């Protein structure tokens, strides 16, 4: 008997020596915004439908061609690359009709602030983006971005940023965000990152690795080596930590991975399985689900550790949870009524109320960062991504496929990312769809991909 107990304590004690972590990625650095350059606030001539708005994005001009760590060919070549990244951002989301720098005239440095209108008026582009790039003595880059209305021949907005050379793509995303926000009136979302699970191998023996990338798929990096299964990551609001599930000790457990330190800790010291981790909007609390003797409930713990608070106690599976943007409410999933349905409660666990009453099952609810919608997986035969308002009304389906699940919101609440599983093969991929449901596209990833989690706009 004593021997048995020893055996079991060996099994249940989390052997934290076991690790599945690769080298740590560089921490996120703050982008410095240049002092106001006297930006203007003109009005846009074309107000009909900004989704069909033509935008010409010329290569960014360099004051002089300098060497830079960001591009082997120097700052002139980098200027073109910046414009290509901006074009891809604006195009890939079905929002505008952008034209890239290849095949467009290359403005000189002086023309960035004084466009040569004659060469832009006959290109079926209502809007024009110019910019510049300068390499500083410290190796950092200064990038300026200007948006012009071609018909009005006037500037709509401008901004500049100073970034480390390795973050040059972030300057392009900031420019795309500036253009997008100015023209659509919506909040920015391009300068953000996505954590997800990269999948390889046969269906009955998948290797699943935690990976991160920029919102456009660039700067891809694996966090775990794949020795043990990793699932369901979530970026902290400040991008300093990742919550995810790992089987590294043989059991499903949530870990808090500190990106800067390259180390991880258990979310709670318990021999029970923990899964479905979520951050509160302020990053101070973590929600997790824990099964005790087979019964799963939702718990909250401080991001600094300490005592957990149990938020649900219904017999049945209560799982997941997503905070409203103000942190006052939590939407979650429960099968207490007999099948998976969506419930809303106050952040302290009180006032639990079912909100989904439209037939079928409803799972994986995620509250929009704008607060006005809840995205979820609707299950009625097939799995589809749908949205509803927080009261449960206004159901709209955004996708129609065999198995789409796990929606995650873009930082501005206008686009939803999810993963799609292929019937039989089990192959998975990341997809994005906008709130109209009309613009759906697949995101390129180096391997199959699931469990996406979109982080907020970068600092």
């Amino acid at each position, binding site marked *: 008997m004593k021997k048995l107990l020893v055996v*079991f304590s060996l099994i249940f004690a989390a052997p934290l020596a076991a690790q599945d972590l690769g080298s740590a990625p560089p921490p996120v650095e703050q982008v410095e915004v240049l002092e106001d350059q006297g930006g203007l606030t003109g009005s846009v001539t074309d107000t009909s439908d900004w989704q069909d708005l033509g935008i010409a994005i010329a290569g960014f001009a360099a004051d002089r061609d300098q060497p830079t760590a960001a591009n082997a060919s120097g700052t002139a070549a980098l200027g073109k690359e910046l414009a290509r990244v901006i074009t891809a951002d604006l195009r890939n989301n079905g929002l505008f009709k952008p034209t890239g720098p290849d095949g467009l005239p290359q403005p000189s440095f002086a023309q960035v602030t004084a466009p040569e209108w004659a060469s832009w008026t006959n290109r079926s582009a209502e809007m024009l983006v110019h910019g510049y790039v300068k390499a500083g003595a410290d190796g950092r880059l200064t990038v300026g971005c200007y948006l012009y209305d071609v018909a009005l021949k006037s500037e709509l907005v401008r901004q500049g940023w100073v970034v480390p050379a390795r973050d040059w793509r972030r300057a392009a995303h900031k420019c795309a965000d500036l253009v997008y926000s100015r023209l659509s009136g919506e909040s920015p979302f391009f300068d953000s990152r996505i954590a997800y699970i990269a999948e390889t191998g046969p269906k*009955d023996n998948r290797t699943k690795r935690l990976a991160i990338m920029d919102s456009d798929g660039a700067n891809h990096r694996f966090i775990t080596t794949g020795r043990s299964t990793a699932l369901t990551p979530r970026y902290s609001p400040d991008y300093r930590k990742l919550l995810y599930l790992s089987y590294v000790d043989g059991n499903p457990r949530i870990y808090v991975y500190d990106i800067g330190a390259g180390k991880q800790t258990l979310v709670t010291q318990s021999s029970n399985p923990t899964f479905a981790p979520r951050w509160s909007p302020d990053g101070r609390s973590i929600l997790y689900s824990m099964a005790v003797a087979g019964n799963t409930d939702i718990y909250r713990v401080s991001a600094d550790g300490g005592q957990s608070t149990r938020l649900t106690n219904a017999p049945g599976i209560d799982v997941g949870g997503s905070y409203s943007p103000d942190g006052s409410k939590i939407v979650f999933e429960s099968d207490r009524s007999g099948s998976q349905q969506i419930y809303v409660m106050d952040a302290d666990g009180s006032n639990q109320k079912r909100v989904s009453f439209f037939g079928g099952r409803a799972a994986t609810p995620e509250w929009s960062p704008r607060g006005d919608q809840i995205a979820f997986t609707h299950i009625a035969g097939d799995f589809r991504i749908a949205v509803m308002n927080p009261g449960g009304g206004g159901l709209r389906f955004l996708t129609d496929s065999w198995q789409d699940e796990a929606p995650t919101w873009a930082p501005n609440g206008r686009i939803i990312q999810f993963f799609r599983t292929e019937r039989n093969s089990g192959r998975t991929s990341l997809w994005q769809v906008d709130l109209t449901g009309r613009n759906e596209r697949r995101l390129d990833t180096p391997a199959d991909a699931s469990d996406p989690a979109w982080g907020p706009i970068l600092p």
Partner: protein
Amino acid sequence: MNRNLAIVVLLTSTAALAGCKTTAPEELPPQQATVTPAATPTPTPTTGGPVLGTQGHFVNAVNGQNIIYFDTDRYNIDSADAAALQMQAQYLMQNAAITVTIEGHADERGTRDYNLALGERRANSAKNYLVGLGVPANRIATVSYGKERPVALGSNAEAWAQNRRAVTVVIN
């Protein structure tokens, strides 16, 4: 005291299955690949066959009934499950040094987090039944793999039926 509790658990799980019909899969999935010929000093009761303390020995002894199956989103123990668990319990009672892990699994037609919870529920359902039959709870660990480890690879009702399972595995 323990025994009373165990009976209550057993009665509860038996009551839960009333009126629920079994959907046994058409064919049984292949045996666990986790069988390792660990050299134990335990004397072998049989000649030539797998050694006591191995998964092979256990699976032979229970006639391959080390896996039980569940209906969609369910975790109750039906009559076929009960028969299999009774054989497992008998083996575990006779071999007091054996400890097991019950792995709970779900089919691919569920969302990931829910399936982890469901697998945990199924593993515990099987564990509670064994405990109800007298197997000490501290000899049974549980782990949920959700939909992460299917044995049948198709996307059809037969494959899903084989994947909704609880597998009893001997800890070496």
